[in-house]
């Protein structure tokens, strides 16, 4: 009964989404006030329906209702409660339902927090989001219905993929989707503004906080995914340039570009047509990511059940949404061209360069991701483009980007001179050279030029961000900084931390696969790893072996690690690494396989300096995004416009 209610609510949501997509936009075009007024209630009702639907699916999981096919395939009575809950979005159907729920939640949020938007603008924004939701809900209901029954019901479910039975993965998809779907909001604002024919600073000011919040979620989602891959996939890598990872990284890069170009549009009224294009581009990449992950056109270690008919549906959807947006863009963009002048040496130019580099980077990653598919389509063989390609392209392109952070954030708007900028940056410049070159000499085991380059960049971003803070604080003290200034500072400091992490981990990590008999020890990175042997392990839905490894440094005990090798009921083996996390280094031990009956095991040992800084950097960047979005000028703006509106009515 409950699953039928969920199914019914889902169908109602589709009907409401269609209403929400069609009437307000037509009403805004024709001037029917009653049609325009439909936007808000429709959006909120759609959200309510999806909430009911999602709750019903969750209920089916918590009750272990195996008469629902999706539950039977992804749950098990012995699954711990928390994972029954997260299993709701553990596979294709449920994660799409979550996608749709989040889209409707974002839309409802716009209707609540966007009270001061003009009714016409609101109608168009909500309408565009309604059309997107219609496509997604139709996809969900017609190709991937999570409420499909399995009759007769089975006594026991198949169990959730053990890789997903982990707290990191409980949070990862919702975060990622909040980001992906969040970019639908600036997209809808851009389309609505083009439909209305008005692209002004107010439009940019509206889009900015939404973009920042979406970007924060995406940043956290990607960082969580990377962290999860690091400890759960078991083999110590934190980024694999897998198509699925690229699918989330491309919208992130484009979204980063969008945030920066929105700043120019808001502050200076420049780059309007470009910003609109970026908003479309960013959301298109979110949709493309969904297509790549769900259609199975690309093979990936993230083996989602793929189905070509689903792929065709998403491709059609992508073609309609992006194609029509770009057509609208072609028709309207020339009208919104900005005529704001700025000199070659100015903050505008720096941000323009930032945008060009970010977009070019995104396109190179897109090319690498789609290349196997293109080659296959041309019938030229099956190839794979591996991490070396992405590293070879990505790293050289990020170097000028890091340099620009310091220059751009200290340059003046409109017009500046190199001499003027040099005066501001020279201390930071010299300091970053000195510290950057000294750091690998003093703090690390051996000197490396790549490490020095990376650290110079990290220190450069760090010192120049401090300088920016000092400039802002001039005359007001550090308490005088606005939240958005804090946001920018944190965002860039996060980049510095991130660069430090990547540089030092990539260059100074050491790794070894060794054969260890109980009592054997092995030394790596200045640490002694003593293997004490393994004991039998019995978990709720798995059994396996647990190893004990005692780690010492120069005779002093450091820690004891217990890596596990589990065999789940579903027949899948899993490696749980033992990790000793630290600010300056991680020690990482994973059990490979038993080698003989004397208790010898193949063991993988890692020493990874500064690996935490990668995620720490992402966290600081996200904090920056939160600060920016919370800046009071957005709230002031909302209040002022509301008052103006009230005054106008009276």
């Amino acid at each position: 009964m409950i699953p039928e209610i969920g199914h019914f609510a889902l169908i109602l949501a589709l009907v409401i989404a269609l209403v929400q997509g069609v009437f307000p936009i037509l009403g805004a075009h024709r001037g029917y006030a009653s049609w325009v007024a439909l936007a808000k209630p429709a959006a909120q009702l759609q959200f309510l329906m999806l909430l009911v639907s999602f709750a019903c699916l969750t209920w089916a999981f918590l009750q272990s209702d195996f008469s629902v096919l999706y539950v039977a395939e992804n749950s098990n009575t012995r699954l711990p409660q928390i994972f029954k809950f997260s299993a709701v979005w553990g596979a294709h159907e449920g994660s799409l339902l979550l996608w749709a729920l989040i889209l409707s939640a974002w839309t409802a949020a716009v209707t609540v927090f966007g009270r001061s938007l003009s009714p016409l603008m609101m109608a168009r924004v909500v309408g565009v989001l309604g059309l997107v939701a219609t496509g997604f809900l139709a996809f969900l209901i017609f190709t991937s219905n999570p409420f499909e029954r399995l009759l007769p019901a089975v006594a026991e479910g198949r169990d959730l993929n053990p890789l997903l039975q982990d707290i990191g993965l409980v949070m990862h998809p919702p975060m990622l989707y909040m980001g992906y779907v969040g970019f639908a909001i600036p997209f809808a604002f851009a389309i609505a503004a083009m439909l209305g024919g008005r692209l002004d600073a107010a439009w940019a000011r509206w889009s900015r906080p939404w973009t920042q919040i979406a970007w924060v979620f995406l940043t956290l989602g990607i960082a969580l995914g990377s962290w999860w891959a690091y400890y759960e996939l078991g083999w110590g890598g934190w980024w694999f340039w897998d198509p699925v990872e690229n699918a989330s990284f491309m919208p992130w890069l484009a979204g980063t570009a969008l945030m920066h170009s929105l700043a120019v549009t808001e502050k200076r009224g420049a780059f309007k047509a470009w910003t609109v294009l970026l908003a479309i581009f960013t959301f298109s990449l979110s949709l493309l990511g969904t297509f790549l992950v769900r259609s199975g056109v690309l093979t990936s270690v993230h083996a989602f059940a793929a189905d070509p008919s689903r792929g065709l549906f998403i491709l059609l959807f992508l073609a309609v949404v992006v194609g029509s947006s770009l057509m609208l863009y072609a028709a309207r963009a020339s009208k919104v061209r900005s005529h704001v002048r700025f000199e070659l040496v100015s903050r505008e130019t720096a941000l323009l360069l930032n945008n060009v580099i970010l977009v070019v980077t995104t396109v190179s990653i897109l090319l690498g991701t789609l290349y196997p598919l293109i080659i296959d389509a041309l019938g030229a063989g099956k190839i794979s483009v591996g991490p070396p390609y992405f590293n070879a392209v990505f790293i050289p392109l990020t170097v000028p980007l890091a340099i620009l952070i310091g220059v751009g954030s200290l340059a003046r708007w409109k017009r500046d001179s190199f001499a003027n900028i040099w005066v501001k940056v020279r201390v930071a410049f010299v300091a970053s050279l000195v510290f950057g070159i000294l750091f690998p000499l003093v703090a690390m085991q051996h000197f490396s030029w790549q490490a020095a380059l990376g650290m110079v960049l990290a220190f450069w971003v760090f010192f120049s961000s401090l300088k920016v803070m000092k400039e802002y604080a001039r005359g007001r003290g550090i308490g005088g900084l606005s939240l958005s200034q804090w946001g920018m500072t944190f965002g860039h400091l996060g980049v510095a931390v991130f660069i430090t992490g990547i540089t030092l981990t990539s260059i100074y990590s050491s790794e070894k696969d060794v054969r260890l008999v109980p009592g054997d020890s092995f030394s790596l990175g200045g640490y002694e790893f003593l293997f004490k042997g393994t004991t039998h392990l019995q978990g709720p839905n798995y059994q396996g072996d647990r190893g004990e490894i005692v780690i010492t440094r120069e005779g002093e005990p450091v820690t004891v690690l217990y890596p596990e090798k589990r065999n789940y009921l579903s027949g899948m083996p899993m490696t749980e690494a033992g990790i000793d996390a630290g600010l300056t280094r991680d020690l990482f031990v994973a059990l490979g396989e038993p080698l003989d009956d004397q208790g010898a095991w193949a063991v993988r040992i890692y020493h990874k300096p500064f690996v935490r800084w990668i995620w720490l950097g992402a966290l600081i960047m996200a904090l920056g995004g939160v600060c920016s979005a919370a800046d009071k000028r957005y709230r002031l703006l909302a209040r002022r416009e509301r008052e103006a509106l009230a005054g106008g009515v009276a």
Partner: protein
Amino acid sequence: MKSRYLIPLAVFIVIVGFLAVGLKNDPKRVPSPLVGKPAPRFELPTLYDPEEKITPEKLRGKVWLLNVWASWCVSCRAEHEVIKRLARMNLVPVYGLNYKDEEADAKAWLGQLGNPYEASLVDREGNVGIDWGVYGVPETFVIDKKGIIRHKVIGPVNDEILQETLVPLIRKLIEEEG
């Protein structure tokens, strides 16, 4: 309208073109070269009588079906009703290939859901599965009187496939000279 604002649209159309071709070339859909070829040889015990060995030669002269299943496979459960319906039509014998399964689990599964199979061949190691090009469970093969594989269904058989493909094909094969 200035032409340069059309550039993004043009680029997008090219990308969609490649994606569409990529979708058509779906890497997972591999045409089966086994169709039209003699059924690969095997000699396997059956689930309920380990003494009884079955080989394709013994089945010469009649049309038969080989349905690959396992108790650990959820889609097989969904398919099982359809296979039972097919067996009840009494058109052709349906043999099961119990793939990489435990004997007790397999018997319990058939006990619970019903056993439509003439006999279930036990392929515990999956070696016969390799010879037959099985790369997922369930799969279903149709073999004619001469021992040639005539059709292969990848994934679960549903009513649509049963009525529109399998039954007409089986009827046609029964008509053919042995």
